[in-house]
């Protein structure tokens, strides 16, 4: 089950964080998303060591925590997408598919002429789209 998705800017500033659990998990998920930026930096700075192919947007499993798995996605503009899930048997193909749809939703949101680049995403349409994507993948 997907419990949290996040969009982090190129200065590692949070642009959008939404948790899909009870409120008591929100703070813990914030910490998980924040710490996953270390792994993203490690992979970006050492692509050969991590085995990631260059120009690959999907970063794979970032690091496992006690109850969650964290996946990352890096766009060309250095914006990071982070997915936190409780499923222990997640397939990479499903995560890639999720990120592809999420990326499309993000592009639609930032293409709004009233959106200022680098600012937080406050679009209700984007939030609704993300909820739909998460809902469809949560059922699998």
């Amino acid at each position, binding site marked *: 089950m997907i419990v949290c998705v996040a969009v982090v800017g190129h200065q590692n*500033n949070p642009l959008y964080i939404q948790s899909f659990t009870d409120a008591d998990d929100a703070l813990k998920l914030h910490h998980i998303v924040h*710490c996953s930026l270390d792994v993203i930096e490690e992979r970006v700075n050492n692509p050969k060591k991590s085995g990631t192919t260059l120009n690959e947007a999907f970063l794979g499993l970032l690091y496992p925590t*006690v109850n969650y798995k964290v996946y990352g996605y890096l766009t060309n503009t250095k914006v990071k997408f982070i997915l936190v899930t409780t499923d222990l048997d997640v397939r990479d193909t499903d995560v890639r598919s999720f990120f592809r749809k999420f990326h499309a939703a993000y592009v639609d949101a930032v293409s709004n002429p009233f959106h200022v680049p680098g600012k*937080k995403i406050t679009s209700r349409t984007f939030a609704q789209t993300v909820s739909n994507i998460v809902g469809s993948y949560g059922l699998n």
Partner: protein
Amino acid sequence: MEEYPEELRTPPVSLVALFGYAELHASITKYLHSQQPPINALAFPDFSQISLLLAHDDQISRTSSFRDPLSVSDSASPIPSRCGGILKRDWLLKHRTKVPALVAAFFPSHHIFGDPTQWLQVCSDLDSLKSVIRPKNIKLVVVVVQSSPHEDISDDRLVALRKRAELDSKYVLFFNSSIVSELTLSLSRLASAFAELALSYYREEGRRIKSRIEKRSSNSLDLNVRYCFKVAVYAEFRRDWGEALKFYEDAYHSLHEMIGTSTRLPAIQRLVEIKIIAEQLHFKISTLLLHGGKLIEAVTWFHQHKTSYEKVVGSTEFIFLHWDWMSRQFLVFAELLETSSATGQSLTSSNQGTAEISLTEFEFYPAYYYQLAAHYLKDKKSALELLLSMSEIAQEIDSSSASITPSVYVGQFAQLLEKGEAITLHSITDEEYTRYTISEAKRVQDSLQIIAWLKRSYESFTNLKAQRMAALCAFEVAREYFDLADPNNAKFFFDIAANLYRQEGWVTLLWEVLGYLRECSRNLDALKDFVEFSLEMVALPVTSYENSGNLRNKNYGPGGPATISGRESIHQEVFTLVCREAELLSSTEGSGFKLATDSPLHLEIDLVSPLRPVLLASVAFHDQMIKPHALCSFTLSLLSHLPLPVEIDHLEVQFNQSTCNFVIRNSQRPLWASASNTVKSGSQVENAPLLVLVPNNWLRLTYAIKSEQSGKLECLSVLAKLGPLFTICSRAESPAAMEDLPVWKHENRVESLPTKDPVLAVFGQKATQVDEPEPQVDVSLGASGPALVGEDFAMPIVVTSKGHAVYSGELKINLVDVGGGGLFSPREAEPFSLESHHVEICGIDGAEGNNESESETGSIKKIQQSFGLVSVPYLKEGESWSCKLEIKWHRPKPVMLFVSLGYLPHGSEANTQKVHIHKSLQIEGKMPLLISNRFMLPYRRDHLLLNRIKPAPDSEDVSSLPLNEKSVLVVSAKNCSEIALKLVSMSIEFDDEQGETSCLIQQGGGCGDSPSSANLAPGEEFKKVFTVIPTTRTPKLGLGSIHLKWRREGGNITEAYVSTKHKLPEVNVEASPLVMSLDSPPYAILGEPFTYAVRICNQTQLLQEAKFGLADAQSFVLSGSHSNTVSVLPKSEHVLSYKLVPLTCGEQQLPKITLTSARYAAEFQPSAVASSVFVFPSAPQAEKAISTSK
């Protein structure tokens, strides 16, 4: 890892037992330890101690009989049969320290080859050893110690010895200790034999146990785990790491199958036993993998280990046991990774993990495991606290569980009971066991352990440059300290986390940390810190309206969830505390701070302060340059991100020039007694109708100040007074250079400008420049055009007092060459310039002024020709004084005139600084007249001058004049200045007396016809004609100099003339050997013949041959010789005569004659002017012409 016994943490080494010859044991033992792998030794001095080895054997027999299922019913055994387990606790230790792989018997050689009695003793000892070791398959080595290499060896006795000991010949060794080289060789042979036999022993033992596994003689999983473990240990003895690893893994898998199937023990204890043995097996596996450099495999194995057992929780009531076990797994693996040297090497591999399990970067570092160890330990702590809070039998735990101790088997516990002298172990129930575990858990300080492991994780992540993980660890450490009521340490680590969250703008996490920091400050009774952290929380861009229920607040820190209502409540709490009024003092005592009523609180906000969102001050001057004493406008803009409006009592605006400071007072607020004290008596006080900071809106205030002092005027800070005891001082910022607020710059909101004027918002500065005050005394230099070389140029200098009087005035005058060099240039010095300076100050004339100034002109001091010092008399306000500076140019060049006036504005005040006014002027020096000259030779009289034909090598461009002939000298004077000049006279004067005797110069035209003076406009040229008759033959004849007298046109009539001299160039005077003259009438009449004669005069002593040729002319009819060669006698003249009849009227060219001198190869050719004649048409015309000519 230190909790594990040493025999588990270190790899096993072979063990041998030495009997007899005690004096050799020390050196043999030392040598065996130095082998690779080392060999441990048990030393027995003599054979009488064989019973000690036998005693161990008795224990082994007992153990062996115990494992036999048929002996289960043996009631004589001290260990109850129903307490059987999987692994015996002391089995590994026994095989490492008590049960040897082989026994070495040392016998002196004379006992073997000597007396039969001693031989019988040897046989008896060997029989005793064999009876002890044969049942356990322990190997035997017989060592014959030789005293000297020359001892006799009996072959028969040796064969008998081998038969007696039942040994191969290679295991009967000879040891010679008499010679050092022999000793070393003996030791080497001994060690080699020991290693070989030990290897054989452990191999056979492993094979024996392995056969039981293969036969599957028992279906019991317990035995299978035990057998696999033993085979693995025997493989480790043999350094066969591959087989050891394989059988450890087999044991692990068999053990895992026992979960849920074994019924030997009560449920809780059964699971505990399985997990403890699994822990040890995994420890062995990880150690072997890491020491073999297989980091990836080790991490993968740990992953499988964790996955296998993390769901095996057991009883949910006592779940803290599971968390404790999980924590220990991560801790041990972290320590293994730290001590392993394979960590750095394997990370270079590009393949991580397998296709089934993907490993991430952090899983290769100890920091990750320390963090999770602490995490699981926290779970254990929480579960234990929950259990204790709900338990009703807490008081009975301590007393009843005192006698429980670990049992004979690994992972089992038993109760010790004393019956008389005997000590027996009895199995316990799960209830008893849980009481024991609770009692043990209560004794451990879990919080300190959590802090220690999190600190190690924090340090490790910091070294890895994983700053966010490090911040999380710091946050966890701080929370543990907070729970332990240690606010100092907690605050330190909270600050570490807060700094990173501030920097990256993670507001939700920062809110949580600041909530804890507030409470730390409250506990430390640090009011200032408490207020600062509270204000920072309140000013965070938290825009969430969600408010979770009270039951869920336990997951948040003291700050609660990050919501707008939370911000507002903290805002009210803080401002009630710090902005309290006198009548509310009693109500604020409840906040926990005990303050004196007169204790002020002052906060400083600078450019990097996290409190910038609380009060942001922007100052923009409307003008970048202002005049002194003039009003200067500026806009002060204040911005606050506090969630509620804040009313300010008064603002104090502070500048670098303190006289400009002023106070803006809120007219609606009461005037506190303390507020009056802070306002300086001389400060300007402005009243504002409203001083309220509305959230996220700029408060714009425009004021004007007046600056008395020149230089930079900068607004430094703005101090806001909030209540009687609370002030916030914010550093002023320029709108042009204002940085974004780090935590607010990513918020999607409408941002307003600090000023209404967009230009000020973009380019506004908090500083402006105040001009220097205008000088009150004026110094003017009255330049009157360019200076002319030779004259005394007058430069008026006027000192005028405008604002105040002039005391002790002093003028300093400097002449500086514009080119940077000195006025004197040695290379360019000219002979006629006798002065050492090209431009000099001739004098300073103070003609104007009152009588007092005239008397002071004597004090003029001229230090150098380019420097002057003049005293200026006292001048009242409005008066002026002037003097004339006379400068003379000797060469045309520009100079820079510097005049500096130093004076005191007030004569009576000694401390007044001297005022200096500087003026400078560039003056160009120019030549007034340009002199040029040229010579005209006699008319129709050509002289042969040899210098023109072949100039001498050393001669320059020098004109040549014929000796004793009249030449015409034309001198031109051109006005090349920009003003009109009056040329009074021009004459030629000889420089010395010699010139007068060697040359005769007369003014042409007569003195009467010469004009007395000439006015030359700029560019106009004046010419004068002189006749020169050189009388002396010389290569260089000096003609003297041209003397000019001139002055400026329109000047004062009384002004003296300027007299300048210009030297004429030297000429070459030589005698001409041949002279050709043309004689023709001045005019001709058409049709009438006239005579045209050419005279050739030879003035030499030699015969001169001359060749001539006459060309025809169409205008004349010619009679005479056209070409011929004539000889002219010395000092004689030859005449060529022609009769010509003009045929055409007007100006006509006579026939051209060419005369060539054969000796000098020179050709005479008259000019066109000399060969022309005017032809009149008739005689009457001639009459008129004659009269006109007359």
